[in-house]
């Protein structure tokens, strides 16, 4: 094995790969089980976008907060939310991360700094300003990251939050995951500026771009922004171009996409394949090592599905619990 040219040591590279693979396997499995009718509700899959969540989350600890989106499974997994708890949540079981009360769109684990997936577009942006403010008062160097899509980037609250974070100099990063579509509508229809990055200047914060299919590109760019935020340098905006492998939600026929678009992207713009090629070609990690992780991840996901299916349903008598802390 040769010298490691990457900004992450070998253990870190293996961890990043495991994270991405776990997300991919989790989502591919949900796709299949949803089609079988096993899973209720709206399910938005993150497959194809793994390098963004992973490239960012590799810099964070449990003290750092994230506020996610409706497409939140990848953010959850990479922030350390228990995969078994997530799967059970999506199945609506009492053993779920949120006792089956929230489902796919509302998975949260505050102990991991995961402030929730969200059913309201853009809602994470003001919340993360609050997380940044709290970190500032605590003085613990914590940062907050919020995610929003190319579509949700046009919510007023996202834009207001960028200004708020700038005037309060909050340790917050706004991450636009640009997958080219907001539901069926193209990014270019909904947004007039060519690049979301250009909006940074309008709020007096740095705006930077990263290729979201390349773990290393995301990792390096966001590393600097996070370091700057931790040191009191204030907020920033990061746009990552990514690919959504599946439909907007499960059950979407995707007729708004071009013929062969998904196949092309799977073949040429798969962040996992790109990662694998880079680390194996550099001779830092072998295919066998990655294959071993694939096997372990497949087992983990299989086990999470089996235990979710076997888990107890919430009890009707608890319908009204947890509306308030006290009442």
């Amino acid at each position, binding site marked *: 094995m040769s010298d490691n040219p990457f900004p992450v040591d070998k253990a870190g590279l293996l961890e990043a790969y495991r994270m991405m693979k776990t997300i991919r396997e989790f989502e591919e499995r949900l796709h299949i089980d949803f089609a079988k009718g096993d899973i*209720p*509700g*709206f399910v938005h899959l993150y497959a194809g976008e793994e390098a963004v969540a992973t490239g960012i989350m590799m810099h964070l600890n449990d003290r750092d907060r994230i506020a996610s989106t409706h497409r939140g499974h990848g953010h959850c997994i990479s922030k350390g939310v228990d995969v078994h708890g997530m799967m059970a949540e999506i199945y*609506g*079981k009492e053993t779920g991360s949120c006792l*089956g*009360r*929230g*489902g*796919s*769109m*509302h998975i949260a684990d505050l102990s991991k700094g995961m402030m929730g997936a*969200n*059913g*309201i*577009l*853009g809602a994470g942006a003001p919340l993360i300003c609050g997380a940044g403010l709290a970190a500032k008062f605590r003085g613990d160097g914590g940062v907050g990251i919020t995610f929003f899509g190319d*579509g*949700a980037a*046009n*919510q*007023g*609250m996202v834009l207001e939050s960028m200004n708020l974070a700038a005037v309060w100099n909050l340790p917050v990063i706004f991450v636009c995951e640009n997958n080219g*579509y*907001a*539901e*069926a*509508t*193209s*990014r*270019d*229809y*909904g*947004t007039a500026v060519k690049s979301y990055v250009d909006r940074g200047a309008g709020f007096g914060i740095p705006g930077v771009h990263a290729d979201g299919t390349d773990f290393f590109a995301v990792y390096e760019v966001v590393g600097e922004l996070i370091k700057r935020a931790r040191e009191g340098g204030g907020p920033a905006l990061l746009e990552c171009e990514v690919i959504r492998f599946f439909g907007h939600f499960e059950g979407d*026929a*995707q*007729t*708004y*996409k*071009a*013929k062969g*678009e998904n196949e092309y992207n799977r073949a040429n713009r798969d962040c996992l394949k790109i990662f694998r090629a880079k680390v194996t070609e550099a001779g830092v990690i072998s295919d066998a090592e990655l294959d071993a992780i694939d096997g372990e991840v497949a087992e983990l996901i299989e086990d999470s599905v089996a235990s979710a299916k076997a888990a107890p*349903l*919430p009890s*009707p008598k*608890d*319908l*009204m619990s947890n*509306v308030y802390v006290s009442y």
Partner: protein
Amino acid sequence: MARKLSYKMAVNEALDLEMTRDPTVILMGEDIVGGAGSPGEDDAWGGVLGVTKGLFAKHGARVMDTPLSESAYIGAAIGAAACGMRPVAELMFIDFIGCCFDEIFNQAAKFRYMFGGKAETPVVIRAMIGAGYRAAAQHSQMLTPIVTHIPGLKVVCPSNAYDVKGLLIQSIRDNDPVIFCEHKNLYAHEVDVPLESYAIPFGEAAIPREGRDATIVTYGLMVHRSLEAAEKLAREGVDVEVIDLRTLSPMDWDTVIESVEKTGRLIAVDEAHPRCSIASDITAFVAQHAFRALKSAPQMVTAPHSPVPFSPTLEDIYIPSAETIAGAVKKTIIQKMVAA
């Protein structure tokens, strides 16, 4: 001439007819075209559940997708309405009203009054309501009481395709702002609907079932659960009248009071939470205006005072069932026997 039409297609047909009739009618909403600027089909979606499918092909630029910016486009619809257009704006799920509430309750609702009766704001805001879709706490709410509370807004909530068509046409022609609530779990429900255009006036409740022993007052999906309860009770010899309010603002108080004066018993059924709800509104009104007619204490059947749970086991008990409604009806009858 009538044929079976679904609740969902009745929305589509009403929009189509009014757009054809009146060039000032324009549609806007997120993905109501659904494919704008995309490499594949332009109108791939026609709304998130396909309600507006085909309207773009027929009416072109008058059917507009919007950026994901509810405060901006709902506000723009209201502004355009104040300037001579008749926009029908779709707020996909009523739960998203938080993102544009100011435009609705401080702007649209108040222009007429604040401007001394000089403004007209003929905007329609269509939104999906209701639980049962496994869509969890932020995509399943009723929120009908919240909009009904506000003076200046009209609130419509049909229970079947016939009413959808007539009430949506009326909503578009109406010169006040209308919140048009569509229950997502009724979209597939079909009834006979005439081919031709017709408008149903606001403030006229329907009586889908007449009866002598008790009055259920309700709207939306709960009309169907109440009719189910009434069928069940009929087999037990209890004759229940069911009132479908159809519009919540204005409210057809006369029909409610007349019915309670006949039956002497009231059961108000509402899929919203119990506090400050349509059910509590009706109960209070009846207590005030038909107190002497009441043979027993009115009952309310509502969803609980909790957010909508995701887990299907919990969501199913969250939504009032025909059994619960029948139980409440019986309570009004047993009470009487005790008193007698």
